[in-house]
């Protein structure tokens, strides 16, 4: 599904990612953990196509295509979805209008029939129930005046409606209380399937109690310094990121 080779990324001349290698196969859930400033969000945004980041080296192959040559909207149409850490408020555009426009753009791209207002509403209602969301949120402007938890749920709702092939969750757990966290995890788990891959970017292990990953990677200072199974997350939680400093000082860097 996704193959990242030696990815190096600059922001305003400062190198943030120093060469990332990562392979994600269909059906797998990968967690990317790391302390603040390690480059987790940068990686997530580069995959979604944010243009303020400059890729200086490496390549990303998604479903056999050169992902880095694709526009953000084309990536979305080809099945990539980024759940934002800080979802953007868009005054004046209703959540319903926005999500339906997005869904129909993607459906059109896939040669599927566009959904009319009624069918769309039916689909959204079902997904909102799953996420315990109040239907009134659909008539409000996108994310405007939403609480932190509502914004995160709105991201997962979009994901559930758009049904991406590759979902990237950028710190979707941050700022959520335990009930909201469980609801969000539930929503994500309901989308797990052999055809769909999920990359969970997180600072904390807590979310991974509910979304159990197949693989865990530790991103540290712009490099993946350790990869393993779900137990690696527990080890990190137990020892903290400081442990990495010590471990890396004794090991020569690659």
């Amino acid at each position, binding site marked *: 599904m996704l193959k990242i080779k030696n990815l190096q990324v600059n922001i305003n001349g400062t190198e943030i990612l120093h060469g990332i290698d990562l392979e994600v196969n269909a059906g797998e859930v990968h967690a990317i953990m790391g302390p603040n400033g390690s480059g987790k969000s940068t990686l997530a945004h580069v995959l*979604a*196509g*944010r*243009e303020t980041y400059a890729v200086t080296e490496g390549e990303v192959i998604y479903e056999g295509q050169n992902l880095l040559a694709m*526009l*953000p*909207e084309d*990536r*979305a*149409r080809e099945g990539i*979805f*980024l759940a*934002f850490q800080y*979802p*953007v408020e*868009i*005054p*004046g*555009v209703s959540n319903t209008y*926005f*999500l339906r*426009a*997005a869904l129909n*753009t*993607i459906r059109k*791209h896939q040669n599927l029939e566009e959904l009319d207002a009624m069918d769309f509403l039916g689909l959204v209602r079902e997904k909102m129930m799953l996420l315990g969301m109040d239907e009134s949120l659909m008539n409000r*402007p996108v994310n405007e005046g939403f609480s932190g938890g509502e914004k995160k749920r709105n991201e997962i709702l*979009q994901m559930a409606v*758009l049904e991406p092939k590759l979902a990237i969750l950028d710190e979707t757990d941050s700022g959520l209380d335990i009930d909201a966290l469980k609801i969000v995890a539930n929503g994500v788990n309901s989308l797990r399937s052999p055809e769909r891959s999920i990359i969970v970017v997180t600072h904390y292990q807590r979310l991974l109690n509910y979304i159990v990953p197949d693989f865990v990677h530790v991103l540290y200072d712009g490099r993946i310094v350790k990869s393993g199974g779900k137990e690696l997350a527990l080890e990190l939680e137990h020892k903290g990121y400081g442990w990495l400093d010590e471990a890396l000082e004794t090991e020569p860097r690659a």
Partner: protein
Amino acid sequence: MTEVKDHRDVYLASFARQEKEFATRPSWLREIRRAALQRFAELGFPTTHNEEWKHTSVEGIASVPFEPAQAGPAGAIIDALKGLPLCGLDCSRLVFLNGHYQRELSSLIDLPKEVRAGSLAEALANGSLALEQHLARHADYQNHAFVALNTAFLHDGIFVEIPKGLILEKPLVLLFISAASGRPIVAHPRTLVITGRESQATVIEGYIAVGEEPYFTNAVTEIVAGEGAVLEYAKFQQEGRAAFHVATVQVRQERSSNVTTYSFALGGALVREELGTLLAGEGAAAALHGLYMANGRQHVDNYTTMDHAMPHCNSRELYKGILDGQSTAVFNGRVIVRKDAQKTDSKQGNKNLLLSEDAVINTKPQLEIFADDVKCTHGATIGQVDPEAIFYLRSRGIAREQARGLLTFAFANEVIERVKYKPLRDRLKAALRARLGAGTGKEDA
């Protein structure tokens, strides 16, 4: 100071010719006309040395010998009208063409018979105490050259009187159409709307064009909202791309009246929209909304005045502008709080979206506060379409141009959504979409 060459003399000669036809008019009006002409002759057209016209040069108006249009047959334009905004509204309407009343295009079928609505010339001929009390008593022709000019040429227009307690269910549409006549013409539309105590009404005033030739519209509207009256007034201006449009709307609000205004300025080459309300009675409330859009080399200037004369009045103002191309715009929001206007609560906002590098906006709040127990806030913003929002939309599959159009539409929509009458709201959205199609290269925003 350099003297701008202007055609004051053309207006003076034109006035002298008209004066003969006005012998039959009431003497109070003839006096006002003469006084206004006198003031216009003294004031002349404002120059950019005048602080209130600093960013708007009217040389383009002053230097052309505009003359009043002759009354012509309206039949030729009926087909052209069908596609224009406001023309399809299923409401009573009064229609003027190049400054002349068009009975055959007007329809007052929905109007309760207690409501007085029709040509000002006819009302003058029949005599009316309210007319004499209010006509030319609110819009200041002593200090304002364009109001003076309009008042000097006051011969016809629209007179609306809503009686006490009457609730008008549907809006009343006043339509001023300009159509090509082969030479530069001027019209001085004049409107007087009086709403009685505890009445309720919606009045929509439209200025639209058939054809693209240059002309000059110099409109004055006076509105009196009686005690406890609730009035919505919307002005929709989509003049031709070569047109000059100067309009002054002056409102007087009595005790506990509630007036909401909307100004949609989309057309014209050079546009000045003045709107003022005098909160003349305790507990009155005013909400002023504006949306101006310009592209190419259009210039649009909004000058608003919120005059708090009495205590416990509440005013809200939101004007938004979208500027593309090399267009220029001015917003001047004056708020006056007089000595007696304690407990005033006033809030003003002006937000501008610049779609191009070359567009220019001059925005200036102007607070003059003479009372000490008041709450007045104001704020102005100038910005581009939010790149974060564009990326967010694109990350959901929406193309860049569509995202830009959608966000621009959303910016403007904040004003349109406040219009209560849904058919008007729908037409405004359609006009906006058509306009953004030209401005952003995308129809489906």
